[in-house]
Each structure stands twice: as structure tokens, then as C-alpha cells.
């Protein structure tokens, strides 16, 4: 049985309440950090843990914190706008262990010297919002948030902000704009990285919910214990959100690199395999922004660099399995339609390109495509993200743009024959 970090308590009844959290060692890490450690020592532990950010980009958390400009006013923002299709790991954490998130956030606020922390939670998480808010209220009453926490002299306030339903607000600078009450338009980087100019113009650290939820464990057990799990840059555990054509979709916390895609999909304790007689056609390894990988890559370990070397990304850790009864054209079209609807509309390639590619893909799926459409789609994709390389060369303001081609290009490269069947037979050969 591997160690559980972020999901250690999620199955306990009433795990979202303060009393249950305290029974299971809750807020001990915050006490330890505030009363026994300096902010620098907390930072050192997190740096030693080697934890990569769990939001999608996989940036080292400790390094991110060290980049924070040391202005008098600094902010911490927790990104809980989990809206990548098929990603539902933070959903579990905010509903079933909101105090762990709050504790991790408070420790981080202490470590980076934030004067105020914000949790920006996806607006559709009705129960999550309710539970995080009541966790914050309970923590205030308990003395874990507010002035002079546990008599340490450290004070911080924690504010919960619901999102208003835009995928793009999961992009950290769009999230900051949204938090400021503006339209969710990503900011242009460089020069304005949030660690230098973030919320209300102040240096800001933006971290994911899962990243924050790991912090109490790291403080309690030490960064080395965290780094001892996993391999290479992939330290600790990750919460994998497995979905698609598997028998047991769900969240599985695994030590990083300890299992392969095949094991996660087929192990009866995890994915439980596919339906009788079906086989894996493709896997989307890190949310729908990630390029697809084929069945030949199933023995890749679930690690950051391992997946990157295969030309994709582990991203948000959500894994979608497509079996051989899935139409690759339709899957790619549906993903493109999502990006088309969720593009913020700010910069031209993403705004216009997403709609155009969506229309062509839909046309091919419906049976009125031509072979030249495939080259056209690839070229339009190339105009959004020149070279179609991964990681992308960016001509757009944020990474939503280069995410559009991921699925389309993967589908055309891996399943060109299937596109040709749609074109020649003037329709989709699959039963929907």
C-alpha cells in the first residue's frame, strides 16, 4: 500500500469538518511551522521536497516561491478554478478535505510572507464552495486564521472567491484579473509574471489546490521524505484523475513514476481495465490540452519527464482513455469545440483559429470533408502554434492557443486513415 498524502482523509465520514480534521492531526503542521520554524525553513523544506506544481505547468513550487519579489505587500492566490475537461482531482480535495487546503494555504502564506491569501474556486463547485467557506469560518473560530495565529505573532486573512464559469480563469494571470473584478483576459508575459507584478500590482504567488494540499504533509514529515518518493524530478505522489473508457474511473493517488499508464488503466485496484473485448486506442495524458499518446506508450511510467519525452505532458494529471470504439475525429472535434467556446477572445490566432478549426473538424465528422481539409487544418494549427512542436512555440498571449492544435494534430497524425474513411464514405463509421 503506497503512502497517501493528499487523499489520506478523504474517505473518513465528515472529513470536511474541523473536529474530524483535528482528530487526524489537523493543524499540527501549521503549529509546527508558525511556532518552531522560520518562513525560510518552511521554504527550504518545500524546496527540498522538489514538488512540482500540480496545476499543469509542473513548475517547481520552491523555485516559484523563491522568485517572489520581496515587496511589503505580497499575496498568495490558490488556483482552484479546475475546469480542464476530465480533471476532477481538486474537486475531491476541496469537498472532502477543505481544512487540509486551508492549512496548506496558511503555511504557504507564512512561508512567503503573504499579507492576505485568496482561494479562487471554480464557481460550479457549489458543495466545494460551501465546504471551503465553512472550513475558513471554523478555522477563524479556532484561531488558525486571523490575527496572531496560535500566539505566533503571524497574521493573515483568507478570502474565498468563487469563479464565474470561465475555463480561461484557470490561467493564472486571467485568474488574477478576474479576482480583481475584471474580465478574465490573460496578461501578456513577459514582463508581468505574477511573482513580480500580480494581484493589484503586488507580487503574487499562484499555486494549485493540490500543491497547497501537499504542504502540511511536507512540513510534518520533511521535504526529504517527500523527495524520497518518486524518481527524478517527479517527487511525491500525484492525484491522477482517470476517466474515459475504463471500468473504474476516479481519482487515484499514486507515488509518481511508481506505476505505468498500463498499470493505472488495467489494475483492478485502479482503472480495472476496459470493457470486454476492447483495446486502448489512445490516451490523453494530461487534460485535453495535452497531445495524445498511442497504445505503444502505455508502459511509460506516470512521471513528468517520462511523458514529456514521449511528446506530451502530464499536465493536470487527468488521464482520458479512448478505446477502439471511439471515433478519433469526433473526439478531436469535441475537444476543439471546447477550446473554441472557452477561448477568451483576446488574441486573434486563438479566437478565430479555434472557431475555424472547429467548423472544419465538424464538417469532416459529418461527412462533407475533403482530403485537402486535413492539410488546411494542420496549416491553420501551425499558424496558431508555429512548428506544432510540444512544448509549443507561442504566438498567442497564453497557452490556451497552442493547446487547440494538440488534439487535432494528434488525431490527424495518429489516425489519418480514420479521417480518410470519414471523407471517402461521407460520414462517421462509428456508432454514437
Amino acid at each position: 500500500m503506497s503512502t497517501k498524502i493528499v487523499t489520506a482523509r478523504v474517505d473518513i465520514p465528515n472529513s470536511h469538518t474541523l473536529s474530524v480534521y483535528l482528530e487526524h492531526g489537523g493543524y499540527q503542521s501549521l503549529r509546527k511551522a508558525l511556532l518552531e520554524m522560520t518562513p525560510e525553513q518552511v521554504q527550504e523544506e518545500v524546496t527540498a521536497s522538489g514538488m512540482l506544481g500540480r496545476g499543469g505547468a509542473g513548475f517547481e513550487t520552491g523555485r516559484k516561491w523563491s522568485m517572489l519579489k520581496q515587496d511589503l505587500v505580497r499575496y498568495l492566490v490558490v488556483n482552484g478554478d479546475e475546469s480542464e475537461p476530465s480533471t476532477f482531482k481538486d474537486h475531491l480535495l476541496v469537498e472532502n478535505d477543505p481544512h487540509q487546503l486551508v492549512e496548506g494555504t496558511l503555511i504557504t502564506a507564512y512561508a512567503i510572507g503573504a499579507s492576505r491569501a485568496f482561494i479562487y474556486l471554480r464557481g460550479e463547485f457549489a458543495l466545494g464552495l460551501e465546504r471551503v467557506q465553512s472550513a475558513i469560518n471554523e478555522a477563524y473560530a479556532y484561531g488558525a486564521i486571523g490575527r496572531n495565529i496560535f500566539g505566533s505573532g503571524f497574521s493573515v486573512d483568507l478570502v474565498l472567491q468563487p469563479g464565474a464559469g470561465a475555463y480561461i480563469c484557470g490561467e493564472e494571470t486571467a485568474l488574477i484579473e478576474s479576482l480583481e473584478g475584471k474580465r478574465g483576459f490573460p496578461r501578456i508575459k513577459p514582463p508581468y509574471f505574477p511573482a513580480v507584478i500580480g494581484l493589484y500590482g503586488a507580487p503574487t504567488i499562484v499555486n494549485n489546490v493540490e500543491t497547497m494540499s501537499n504542504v502540511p504533509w511536507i512540513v510534518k514529515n520533511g521535504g526529504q521524505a517527500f523527495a524520497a518518493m518518486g524518481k527524478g524530478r517527479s517527487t511525491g505522489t500525484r492525484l491522477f484523475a482517470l476517466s474515459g473508457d475504463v471500468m473504474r474511473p476516479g481519482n487515484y493517488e499514486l507515488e509518481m513514476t511508481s506505476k505505468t499508464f498500463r498499470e493505472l488503466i488495467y489494475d483492478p485496484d485502479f482503472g480495472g481495465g476496459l470493457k470486454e473485448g476492447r483495446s486502448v486506442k489512445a490516451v490523453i495524458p494530461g487534460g485535453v490540452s495535452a497531445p495524445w499518446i498511442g497504445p505503444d506508450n502505455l508502459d511509460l511510467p506516470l512521471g513528468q519527464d517520462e511523458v514529456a519525452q514521449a511528446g506530451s505532458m502530464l499536465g493536470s494529471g487527468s488521464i482520458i482513455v479512448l478505446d477502439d470504439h471511439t471515433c478519433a475525429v469526433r473526439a478531436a472535434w469535441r475537444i476543439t469545440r471546447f477550446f473554441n467556446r472557452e477561448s477568451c477572445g483576446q488574441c486573434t490566432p486563438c479566437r478565430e483559429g479555434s472557431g475555424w478549426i472547429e467548423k472544419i473538424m465538424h464538417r469532416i465528422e459529418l461527412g462533407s470533408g475533403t482530403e485537402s481539409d486535413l492539410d488546411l487544418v494542420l496549416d491553420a494549427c501551425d499558424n496558431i502554434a508555429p512548428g506544432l512542436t510540444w512544448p509549443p512555440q507561442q504566438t498567442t498571449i497564453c497557452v490556451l492557443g497552442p493547446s487547440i492544435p494538440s488534439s487535432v494534430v494528434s488525431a490527424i497524425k495518429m489516425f489519418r486513415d480514420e479521417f480518410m474513411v470519414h471523407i471517402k464514405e461521407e460520414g462517421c463509421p462509428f456508432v454514437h
Partner: protein
Amino acid sequence: MSTDESQNLVTLSIDGKEINAKGGELLIEAAEKAGVFIPRFCYHNRLPQVGMCRMCLVEVKGPRGFSLQPSCYLPVSEAMEVITQSEKVKKAQDGILEFLLINHPLDCPTCDKGGECPLQDQTLTYGPGESRFAEEKRHWEKPIAISELVFLDRERCIQCDRCTRFADVVAGDALIEFIGRGDHTEVNVFPDRPFSSYFSGNTVQICPVGALTATPYRFKARPWDLSQVESSCMACSMGCRIMVQSSQNGLTRYLGLDSDSVNHGWLCDKGRFGFEAVNSADRES
């Protein structure tokens, strides 16, 4: 002052040619001063830059070699190397123009902007010759009156943010804003609140397409038929610089001229549209 400026000068190379520019100056401006015009839509020298249209992408050398970057957002620095003419830049410009045109109506012959339209002009100079777009274009009701003076055609709009930025930043009354997301982003007014700004006419002048048109000029003349003379506005004592344009022996339009010490190209609606009094039938003298 002069010593400060000379200390602040940087040398960079654009297309292999060395030029001097003020440190911190935007690349798109430094290039233009050196005689290299980089196409643009959202960039306007009197508005804060937003880097939205991506038309001004050029190749800039960084630690990992040359990459495409928006020149409207990049301050020049010492020893910067820039390429504005290359296959890569050409393809990027082609691509952006194609994207902008896929949902842009081909109604240039009946569009008031035709003949003085940055989209039309830059398509001819930098764009692809043909469209590969075979789908249905985006449709909006056209045009809609957003005030007594200004008409908005959302099909022509290329979402450059010039009008909305002007309304917010320069005029200080953000009565027009982006609504919606993705390729259904539209500029519009808020419900039951017309675009009743005293400065609304400026948005018509800076619109890089024919999305915003002003009632007094709609279907009155073609730009190439206009005679024009520079003058000063007489609506008040400010003395804003204007271009007085006429056609068929009648006043047709005033445009604001960029005078650094006076009006930066802007005019109030009274100054801009007041000329209608000159030939008005209601005039007493």
C-alpha cells in the same frame, strides 16, 4: 536633457541594419522611426498597448535563438536583433490576416472605411491573396445604433480593443465593452445605456475597420474623393488640430490630428460633428 537622452540611447539591429533608439522605447515605434513599418491593428501610439491582434509579430533573438514576438509589447534594448522580413514572419502575418478575415464580411464596396481601411490596406500589402475559409461566417445584426451618432457593425469588428480602450482609458467613460468569449466576442454597450460619451467620435476615427461609423459621414463620400485642409477646431478655445474634409463643395468630416501639445488626435463630439451647423437649413445667418 540632451546628455540624458544620449546616455539612454541603445543600438539594435533591424533586418541587419543598425539603428539607434531610446532605451525602453517600444520596438514597433523605434522601427517605424527607422523607416521599417511593422503592420498593426490594435497598437495605437496614444493608447496603452495590449498585444491582442498579433499582427506585429517579428522575430527577435533571445537566449534560445529567434522567436516570434509582438513588437508592440517589446521595449528595445541594447544589441537586440530583430528580423521583420523573413519566411517565418511572412507566414505569421499571412496567418493572422487570414484569421482576421475569415469572419470579416467582404462588403468593402459598401463600407465607409473602404479606401482608408487599415485592414484592407494591410491585407493588400501583407496578406494572403485568397481565402481558404469555406465555412459560414459569423453573423450579427448589422449595423446597430449604439448612440445617436455612432453605428456599430459587429460583423466587421476585429476585436482590436481600440474603441473600448479609448472609452475606458482616454475618455474615462467605459460605456462600451467586450461581451462574450471566443469567436463570439462582441463589442457592445450595456443594456439600456447608450454610448453617450462626449468623445464617442474618436472611436470611429481609430477603428481599424468599418465597425464603427458616425451618422454624419455614413454613405456621404469616399475617402479618395475628399479634399482636405489642416485647421484648428473652433468649437471652443482649446484649438485642437483638425483635418477639415470636404466633398462636392460641402463639409463632410472633421478628423482629429495628433498635435502633441494640444489634442493627441482626439476631438470632442461637439468639435467633431459641429460642422453640420455650417450647411444646416436651420441656420439663421
